[in-house]
């Protein structure tokens, strides 16, 4: 019986060592995968779209602050809005990113009473003629244009 017990203990001990070694291999393989997968950890210098849009918006914030406008709503329009087309999901995503960049100002859509309007023409970079009733406040030439609504006569 003592011999059986010794063999059993040794077998379990051996299997346990193999299982531990395999588990350690799995752990470090997963860690190595994280470190080497560019989708998980993109290489330095990779451009993040939110950072880009945040930086694009900085001159707009500066222009608004120069106008003394530090709190309130800004209307948002894209080239599609001007053409009267429906907005695809890509427009929603860009709007959401500029809305984040605009905080504490509130970037909203379909706000005809907002005193300022952000024109987002970053999709193709072509700036359309100034829409009626608006005047250009800032055009940092990055696809964004800040307009001010002219008071109605």
């Amino acid at each position, binding site marked *: 019986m003592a011999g059986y017990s010794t063999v059993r203990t040794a077998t379990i001990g051996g299997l346990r060592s193999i*299982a531990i070694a395999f*588990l350690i291999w799995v752990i470090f393989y997963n860690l190595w995968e994280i470190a080497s997968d560019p989708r998980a950890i993109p290489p330095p210098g990779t451009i993040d779209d*939110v950072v880009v849009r945040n930086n694009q918006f900085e001159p707009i914030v500066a222009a608004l602050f120069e106008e003394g406008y530090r709190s309130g709503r800004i209307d948002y329009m894209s080239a599609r809005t001007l053409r009267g087309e429906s907005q695809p999901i890509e427009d929603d995503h860009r709007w959401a990113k500029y809305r*984040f960049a605009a905080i504490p100002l509130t970037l909203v859509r379909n706000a005809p009473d907002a005193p300022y309007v952000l024109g987002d023409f970053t999709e193709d970079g072509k700036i359309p003629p100034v829409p009626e009733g608006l005047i250009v406040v800032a055009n940092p030439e990055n696809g964004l244009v800040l307009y001010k609504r002219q008071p109605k006569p």
Partner: protein
Amino acid sequence: MSYANLVDFTIAFATSTLLGFFLTSLLLPPRVSAGLTWILAVPTGIGLCSLIDFLFRRPMFTVETIVGVVLFGLWVWRHGNPVRNLTAVTPGPIPLIGLLFAVVLVWTLVTAYGRVTVTPLGGWDGWAIWNSHARMIYRDPKWKEHIEHTFHPDYPLLVPFMVVRMWRFIGAAVPGISGLVSLLLTFSGFGALALFLAQRRSALTSVLIALVALSTPLYLIFAALQEGDTPLAVFILCAIALVCLYFERARDHFGVLALAGFMAGCGGWTKNEGLLFIVAISIALLIPAFVQPRLTLRRFGAFFAGLAFPLAVIIFFKLTVAPQNDLMQNRHYEEIVGRLLDANRYSSISESYVQTLWKFGGWAWHPALPLLAVLLLSRIDWRTLRSTEWLTGALTVFIVLAGYYWTFVLTPLDLRYHLDTALFRLYFHVWPSVLLLAGLATVKVDSPEE
């Protein structure tokens, strides 16, 4: 991030950890290792400062200083002169395997920070929700009125205030700070997992379990993307682990349960799912009332004493700032009953629960089977699986997962979309706690002081 920013960040992080240390060591019994006390100080300090900063936004550092002085006074009164009593503040000798774990932990932290440097404003939820709220609070004195213009303005504010505190201390909204503090909080959870287990389980088992948690790719990426899920997972882990610690080693020390209550409250202050966790752990703690009503109520009283402050802040926030949750808006009786009676929803959700369980971590190799083999060959203590501490923890996790299940049954969102975007992150919330319970199931190692 400049060198000066990093120095300021280190001071801000150290002061919140110090506050957490005083509170944690006042509530834990002296026989708990100083290492565990220090690692618990990180989430405790972050939670405490976040609650203070919500209530006292402008004089936040004055109030923190007053709280710190009071806690330090109480700490000296209990422990004596810290210079003469170094054992109360130093971790003591660390085994070699612990040092190796620390090396892997730091290496992984540095690797994960690489993600923060590329996406310093966070992932989708990171910037659209948590950093948006932090920006609004930091930049707008009337943030309580204007936060409704952000995504999910009803979400609790532990993470945003954790970030705002750092920005206020530094003096600027430096990109990447939110990712760094999120990573440090998440990594304190890995340390806590190892040190909780090391209290009574072998060092090898403790380190292996913590490494399994650490090597969960998507969990790490989510921490770097500044999502709220990994902070919530840390608070859930700490609350469950402290309840287990109470039942296993400190039944004469109700302070442990008070700290568990505080951690649970911080979970509720992190995400709405944390509110479900508060309910779940409360039910699990109250179930023994059928057998031992007086003792159970005393235990729950201690737990509630720790929960009360964060819970009061959550209620205040929900009543005065937060609009209605999007899952609750415009619901009708007929529509809810229709979802309840739709059998297809149950089968879809059950199927997703099983499928997602296998892939939620984004592993190249799933660690479940080798881990199970190690635990079984290391001897499972079957008495532990029937013990109050283990059953309380397991029941809490079960109730949380069941609660998520019913949320999916009743969700007004498209079910497939909701399952695909939410279920894997809901598994994150309980993943470290499940690993803790797995480790606790192994045989105990006698501690020298008992």
